[in-house]
């Protein structure tokens, strides 16, 4: 099953590379924020699969932390773009 997990991890890395195009060249700041959010949520799954490839269960804790940080970062950026400040 390690080969299957390695292939899935490579395909997820390919999708991250394709969405990095929209994050680098996308017109306007909202396209870039959306692409960064997509890359962050793909990184969660990539971390879980890396935990199965290397057989280290520590990576699941890192992926939980990364999910929370990505969500809070996206919300803060959206509120900042909407109102001009994070806290009202």
């Amino acid at each position: 099953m390690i080969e299957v997990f390695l292939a899935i991890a490579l395909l997820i890395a390919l999708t991250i590379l394709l969405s990095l195009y929209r994050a680098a060249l996308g017109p306007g700041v909202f396209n870039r924020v959306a692409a960064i959010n997509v890359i962050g949520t793909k990184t969660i799954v990539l971390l879980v699969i890396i935990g199965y490839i290397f057989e280290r269960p520590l990576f699941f804790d890192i992926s939980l932390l990364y999910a929370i940080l990505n969500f809070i970062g996206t919300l803060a950026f959206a509120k900042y773009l909407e109102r001009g400040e994070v806290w009202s």
Partner: protein
Amino acid sequence: MVLIDVIVILFLAAGIFFMFTGVIGLLRLPDFYTRLHATGKCDTLGEVLIIAGLLLYHASHYYHEAPLVPVKLLFLIAFIFLANPTATHAIMKAAYMTGVKPWKLGEERR
């Protein structure tokens, strides 16, 4: 044991299919709102399918070594189901409030 592996591979393949669909929508569609329409649903479903497949694999192979890991993966599934559409809605509301116009048929791609 082999049947469980086949089911896990089917889950992973379905998740990869949905993730590629979302990324193709993010690259190809003409407008900001349509791009978020593609990624907000396809990415959520693809990631949840992949993590569910890994949960099934763990519960069938490694359950006695580490019985706490499926709980963490269930928390991850619940959090992705809650957080990913919420973040998409927040970005889309911010764009609508700051005056980004939706794309109409016949206009130029943005």
